[in-house]
């Protein structure tokens, strides 16, 4: 007897056995993970009540500072804990430490600026004082006289001028937008000349100030090892891999200077840690492994699907805390108001808005981990009136109303629109979801995905190839700024708003709220009511940025919650 099975039978059995073995291995490797507690889903149409993240095991914090966290949680800093090495996992690192090109909150521990880093807040930090002249077209700055960089070079007004000139040459928006020039008037005094009258929030003096001598001595213009005046200096920098900062033991700022800065930006100049290490970990799975393995203590690069492991009920919930902060980026829709577009008719724009179920959108895209809004700005902003989220007149999900408006505009048989999107996953997924929502009311949407740069060039040349598109509005810290980004006429290469809308009243109202002292509640409300009636777009959501921290590690953030102050992270006293 040669074979028990025929060759054909054996091959069949082998194939089935192999597939079964592979499936068994995959199932075995996935075992051991507990299902998290289900979060409740809000079905309300009011964005403010889309507050359904009960899965979080810590209070949602929308722009709360470290001080507010500490007060709420009754946290006290454990001075005796180990502060030797803070290791953070990040999705991407700065490409360069050049003062005109760095990106990343940790760079604020290396470089400092004349004032704070939040928008146009003129709270002096490196500067001893920053004062407008009477005509508001010049700012007199007096620099502190005791500032040294990590090479031991003394910082004077000439270094400030050099730093700003470098930023001007690099066409940094933060300089070219505000300043026409400056004059050094003394060893520690410099006068800045403004291009235009200041806006409502004053002037941002956020340019990194450094020593001209150190810069000129650097072989690559600080690209790899930048020399700043901050509480930390660069020990190691490998692009796309790691940034290691060590405490500046010769830090120039004393208790008085640090206390002054702490009044407005608590923790910005702290030196809690001996060494801070920032590792680039691109894959969320790798971040999870690094957190679970103890290789990193904190990360804000854990995606939505993996967060459940760390939230209440998750397998790692006992060892970690999840903090949530609303992102400063508001995702919006923009409607093409050009004469060539059907959405030139305001009834159709309102119909589209009524057809969108914002709560369902947030649930679909982020499992509820986003904050809805009723404007082209984040509802988490400190000056966002909560009444906007409960107004009757806003376009809350109402399919019946949408159909009525379509019929009124003569499109009862249906309407065809083109939705211009791009490869950004949020935009792309939102487009697909909105496509299905609009189909429910008789609007057929075809999706067109283009690279953003290519799309902008095409939009300039052709006003008719798209009808709806997505836009992302970053708003720093005030509602009026978001309005400027969303509605200003001179922000693009064509006349009008992002959707080609032009009239006389809109820019007048915008100038009113953005003028120095003009961002009053009444003016902002007037603007809001006007644009709401025009329905030029639809504010969708701000996604939550969730960060995962080792249990006991308390993060510190800037007052608006936009920037992390990693150097101020601390261990809470148990």
């Amino acid at each position: 007897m040669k074979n028990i099975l025929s060759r054909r039978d054996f091959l069949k059995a082998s194939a089935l056995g192999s597939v079964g073995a592979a499936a068994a291995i995959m199932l075995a490797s996935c075992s051991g993970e507990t299902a998290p507690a289900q979060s409740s889903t809000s079905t309300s149409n009011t964005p403010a009540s889309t507050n359904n993240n009960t899965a979080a095991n810590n209070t949602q914090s929308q722009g709360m500072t470290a001080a507010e966290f500490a007060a709420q949680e009754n946290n006290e800093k454990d001075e005796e804990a180990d502060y030797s090495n803070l290791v953070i996992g990040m999705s991407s690192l700065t490409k360069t430490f050049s003062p005109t090109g760095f990106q990343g909150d940790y760079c604020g521990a290396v470089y400092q600026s004349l004032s704070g880093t939040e928008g146009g807040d003129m709270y002096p930090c490196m500067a001893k004082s920053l004062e407008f002249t009477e005509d508001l077209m010049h700012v007199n700055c007096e620099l502190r006289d005791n500032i040294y960089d990590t090479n031991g070079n003394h910082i004077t007004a000439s270094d400030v001028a050099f730093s700003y000139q470098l930023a001007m040459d690099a066409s940094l928006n933060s300089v070219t937008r505000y300043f026409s020039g400056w004059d050094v008037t003394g060893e520690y005094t410099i006068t800045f000349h403004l291009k235009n009258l200041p806006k409502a929030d004053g002037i941002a003096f956020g340019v990194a100030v450094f020593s001209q001598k150190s810069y000129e001595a650097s072989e690559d213009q600080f690209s790899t090892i930048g020399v700043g005046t901050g509480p930390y200096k660069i020990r190691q920098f490998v692009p796309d891999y790691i940034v290691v900062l060590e405490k500046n033991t010769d830090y120039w700022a004393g208790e008085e200077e640090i206390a002054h800065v702490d009044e407005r930006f608590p923790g910005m100049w702290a030196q809690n840690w001996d060494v801070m290490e920032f590792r680039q970990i691109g894959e969320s799975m790798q971040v999870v492994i690094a957190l679970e393995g103890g290789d990193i203590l904190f990360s804000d690069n854990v995606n939505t699907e993996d967060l459940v492991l760390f939230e209440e009920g998750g397998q790692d919930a006992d060892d970690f805390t999840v903090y949530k902060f609303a992102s400063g980026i508001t995702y919006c829709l923009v409607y093409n108001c050009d004469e060539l577009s059907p959405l030139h008719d305001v009834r159709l724009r309102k119909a589209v808005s009524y057809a969108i179920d914002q709560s369902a959108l947030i649930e679909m895209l982020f499992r509820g981990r986003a904050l809805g809004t009723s404007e082209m700005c984040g509802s988490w902003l400190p000056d966002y009136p909560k009444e906007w989220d409960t107004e009757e007149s806003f376009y809350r999900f109402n399919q019946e109303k949408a159909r009525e408006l379509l019929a009124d505009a003569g499109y009862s048989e249906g309407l065809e629109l083109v939705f211009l999107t791009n490869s950004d996953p949020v935009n792309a997924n939102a487009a697909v979801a909105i496509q299905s929502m609009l189909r429910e009311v008789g609007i057929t949407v075809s999706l067109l995905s283009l690279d953003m740069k290519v799309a902008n060039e095409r939009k300039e040349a052709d006003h008719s190839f798209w009808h709806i598109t997505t836009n992302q509005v970053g708003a720093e810290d005030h509602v009026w700024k978001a309005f400027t980004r969303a509605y200003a006429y001179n922000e693009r290469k064509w006349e009008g708003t992002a959707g080609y809308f032009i009239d006389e009243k809109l820019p007048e109202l915008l100038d009113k709220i953005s003028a120095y002292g003009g961002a009053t509640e009444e003016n902002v409300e007037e603007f809001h009511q006007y644009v709401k009636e025009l329905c030029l777009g639809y504010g969708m959501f701000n996604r939550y940025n969730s960060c995962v921290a080792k249990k006991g590690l308390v993060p510190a953030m800037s007052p608006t919650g936009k920037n992390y102050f990693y150097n101020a992270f601390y261990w809470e006293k148990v």
Partner: protein
Amino acid sequence: MIRYIIKRILMTMLVIVIAAIVIFALMNILPGDPASSLLGDGATYEEIQAKKEAMGLSGPFIVRLGRYLYNFFIRLDFGRSWFYNTSVYGDVAERIPRTIGISLANLFFTVALGVPVGVMAAMKRGKWQDKGVLALAMIGMAVPGFWVQMELIILFSLKLHWLPASGIGSWKHYILPIMGGILGGWTGAARQTRQSVLEVMRADYIATARAKGVPNRKVIIHHMLPNALMPVITMVGGQLGGIIGGSLATERTFSIPGVGTYMLNGVSNRDYPIVEAVTILLAAVHAISMLLVDLAYGFVDPRIKAQYVSQSGKGRRKKKNA
């Protein structure tokens, strides 16, 4: 044969230069203005022109092409990254050892493991050894490589704490990336080798050698393997060509700052110097690997070697003199 080799080397160099010209031309006809992108929407026309001048984007195309080719091939100056503001040559030189190290180690162990296993499977055709190898090969080819890598990380880093999960720093950081590549790659080499050995086994000269009483080991090594290796050499040549660009998934999974991620960032940022330099390098590596494969054919198969010699003109001269 020497003449043939020189001729092929010259042709390869020409191919690389042509590839460089094509790549440079393609980058220049892409839509979008890099200077405007870098400066942002608020930049004035004068600022954009000044930036273009600084970036070397102004001037006639031919002049810029000539300057680029001269700098690239003669001075080995690949330009400066627009985003990192560092020398592209320096960046590539720093990263390439990591990428090549992983890729070469993968290739070496894949061949060292896959070829003997494939030969063994062919020799034991129909028996449990052959069936086992086939089953493993099927699983190996069905399972995605990145999944294998993740499972290795979970086992060796998370559970056992034997090896680091990501990054660089010591030789230990490279074990998991290499293991992941081997586990997925050897099955293909084994299958390919098994198939080609089976075909050769049926040849008349093998039967003749056996009939003459040549020991089995000698039949395999001296007669069977050289003829069965041709498809394997082709497969290895293809993998050799991907030695730089093929490791992107591994670099991303293990957060290794290699040439793959460097290239990807360059593409995302529209950093032309990086994209041009790395693409030309990729083309060069492919061209060189094809040259090596062709030369390996000649080394393994005397018939092909004779063909090369006759192509180079030496054979014709001999015939003339006879």
